[in-house]
């Protein structure tokens, strides 16, 4: 391994041409929202409450504030403060939000990353999905996404499991689901015996289905990151248990599903949109349930943002919101193999 004091350790992880290209793409993002009269906002990176989400690890810091010495949390997404703005009557807003998720390290992950998040009061989920696709089409060059104007292909979660794994994710017995996830996920038999249904579904989604989503017809199977064509696809109607704070509705098969979508391109998840639940009591119950699960698993508890609960209690306008991993879009647009290559100083070269 290279010692930290070698001569090149001070250098950026992205080259200058990439940083210029990145800046041009950021300009396009701002122009896209300016045209649509969506207001750019900046909300705190440090907050008095953090994300309680059991599988997101928040970073925190001890600070000396006017209120005394207190623990402040680095945001894992700008959601809470943006919802407080919406409740205060901001109207449609977007943010290029530096966010932090501890331990997320890899070719498509960096602990600190740029999340593009926006909220559309009064807009339905389908319209937001099309808007998200329209933005991504503006950012990906013709050489990567040639079908710029073709309609977004939309798959139901159930349909993908039928087609690729020949199971119905809503009704397959848990024992069979665990064995299938172990087999397809390169895990020894029994490794998932204590795991709930959603973990097994996540595993199959991530390892079997996702890698095949969003490729041009002839390109499937090529190594990701190679300069090659893809297409934009959406996945909708997730199981209700994966709703997080999305609304729920009943699908054509009579199952309750989550009103959310994810967009994929070349096997990579790019965006996650929700028809936002606006119920304060439900939000508070979710926070408490998350912290209870954290205690059970031996994870640190996270301070709850009671000001978000108060804002929801005051009233959040009906509408939808979406979070998009901007670094990943830039990575795909520029055909780079790692996220670090599109960041000036990726962790831990920071």
């Amino acid at each position: 391994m290279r010692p930290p004091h070698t001569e090149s350790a001070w250098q950026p992880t992205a080259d200058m041409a990439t940083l210029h290209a990145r800046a041009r793409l950021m300009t396009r993002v701002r122009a896209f929202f300016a045209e649509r009269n969506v207001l750019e906002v900046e909300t705190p990176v440090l907050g008095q409450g953090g994300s309680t989400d059991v599988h997101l690890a928040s970073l925190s810091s001890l600070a000396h504030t006017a209120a005394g010495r207190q623990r402040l949390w680095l945001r894992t997404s700008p959601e809470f403060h943006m919802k407080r703005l919406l409740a205060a009557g901001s109207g449609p807003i977007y943010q290029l939000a530096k966010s932090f998720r501890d331990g997320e390290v890899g070719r498509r992950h960096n602990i600190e990353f740029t999340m593009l998040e926006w909220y559309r009061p009064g807009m339905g989920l389908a319209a937001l999905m099309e808007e998200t696709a329209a933005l991504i089409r503006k950012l990906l060059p013709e050489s990567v996404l040639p079908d710029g104007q073709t309609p977004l292909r939309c798959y139901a979660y159930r349909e993908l499991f039928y087609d690729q794994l020949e199971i119905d994710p809503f009704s397959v017995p848990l024992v069979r689901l665990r064995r299938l996830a172990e087999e397809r996920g390169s895990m020894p038999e029994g490794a998932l015996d204590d795991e709930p249904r959603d973990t097994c579904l996540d595993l199959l989604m991530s390892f079997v289905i996702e890698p095949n989503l969003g490729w041009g017809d002839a390109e499937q199977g090529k190594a990701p990151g190679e300069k090659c064509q893809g297409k934009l696809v959406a996945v909708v109607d997730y199981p209700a248990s994966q709703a997080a704070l999305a609304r729920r509705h009943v699908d054509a098969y009579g199952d309750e599903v989550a009103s959310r979508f994810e967009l994929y391109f070349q096997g990579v998840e790019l965006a996650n949109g929700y028809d936002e639940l606006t119920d304060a009591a439900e939000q508070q119950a979710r926070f408490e349930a998350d912290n209870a699960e954290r205690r059970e698993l031996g994870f640190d508890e996270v301070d709850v943002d009671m000001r978000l609960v108060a804002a929801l209690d005051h009233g959040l306008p009906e509408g939808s919101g979406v979070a998009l991993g901007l670094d990943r879009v830039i990575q795909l647009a520029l055909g780079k193999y790692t996220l670090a290559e599109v960041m000036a100083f990726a962790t831990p070269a920071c």
Partner: protein
Amino acid sequence: MANHSTNEFKGGLKVMLDGDPCSIVSNELVKPGKGQAFNRVKLRNLMTGRVWERTFKSGDSLEGADVMELEMEYLYTDGDMWYFMQTDGSFEQYAVEKRALGDDEKWLKEQAPYTVTLWNDNAIQVTPPNFIELEVTQTDPGLKGDTAQGGSKPATLSSGAVVNVPLFINEGEVLKVDTRTGSYVSRA
């Protein structure tokens, strides 16, 4: 040995898996939206050389393997074991079994430098230098004057390896050979 958690898995880290020492080849984090994260890991089993793919829940850990790579020179064989000596001045000798040599037995040359991988102080793998110089012990006679034309012929080297060489090479010449591909590079 210390335990290593999935976020410490980096290329080259030595860990124990199913009772065998392994070297991490690659590690990819897979994080479904809001769910449990996984690490998809490729490991080379150092006993068999095979590459395994395994998925771990993020935060799982594996026991570290007591694996060291030492520079040694090859001394001799008594037919059962092959003997190597450390070149760090300690002159410590290690006996290596045939299994650890595998196909690389054909690249052994006295006093040449090798990397010997030790697990719990037993040699489990011997890696020859990338390039080695060996004498041709047998090859068909060369064609006079044919120095630029294509075409090749087999030649047996002093270590027992057989490589394809250009037609102009003669017995007794010393050649530089790439041990990774088993191919002729040049006259030494």
